[in-house]
């Protein structure tokens, strides 16, 4: 999986693409943590448009990012979530904690 990030006017955008599983999750969380620590955004958006597969490891990454943003008093939401990742997030009821927008 690959992650790219852009930061402008206090807003951090994270673009995740490829497959997010346990193998990818550790590096993903490190990269996301670094982006948040360096930029201290007041708003963070995670774009999953390029994510072709996600298992429950992705739930931990999303909740971990939410926690991190919460600690610095920032907002966090997830956008462009495709069908398969959406089903995984729904199984865990992640929408009760994090704002999630489906793709399309």
């Amino acid at each position: 999986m690959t992650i790219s990030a852009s930061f402008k006017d206090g807003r951090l955008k994270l673009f995740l693409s490829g497959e997010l599983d346990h193998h990818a999750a550790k590096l993903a969380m490190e990269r996301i943590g670094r982006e948040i620590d360096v930029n201290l955004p007041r708003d963070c958006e995670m774009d999953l448009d390029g994510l072709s597969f996600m298992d429950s490891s992705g739930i931990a990454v999303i909740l971990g990012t939410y926690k991190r943003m919460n600690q610095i008093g920032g907002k966090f939401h997830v956008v462009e979530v495709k069908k398969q990742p959406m089903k995984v997030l729904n199984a865990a009821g992640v929408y009760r904690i994090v704002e999630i927008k489906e793709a399309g």
Partner: protein
Amino acid sequence: MKVVNYIKIEFPSKSNNEGFARSAIACFASQLDPTLDELGDIKTAVSEAVTNCIVHAYPDTLGKISLRSKIYEDNSIEVVIKDWGAGIDNIEQAKEPMFTTGGEERSGMGFTIMESFMDKLRVKSVPGRGTTVTLRRKISMRAGGR
């Protein structure tokens, strides 16, 4: 029930084999002409089971994981994921949503996802000896048939 086709794969518990395992099963399952959604469900469940072996069965060592799959004449697929690792003390507790012994990086949703994405989930485990997870899913026959 009659077995139409089968495969058997063995690999070490390296995390870069997670992607290989779910893709291999998806490739085999494609013989049943599943929809993308059905294929996604199977891939997700297999990914959870294999990840469990890597994270929980062999936490500090590399061990052997066996992946077997059968296609039955009723258009169903069975996937059996077996390890010879730590085993599970309390299977009912392990199956509970949000329960994990894996720490911050894990969500505790593995068995919940396997259960809800497949038709059947069976877990057999002996602490210190290993775990066998059996997943089963029937693939809908599509109009026009094959």
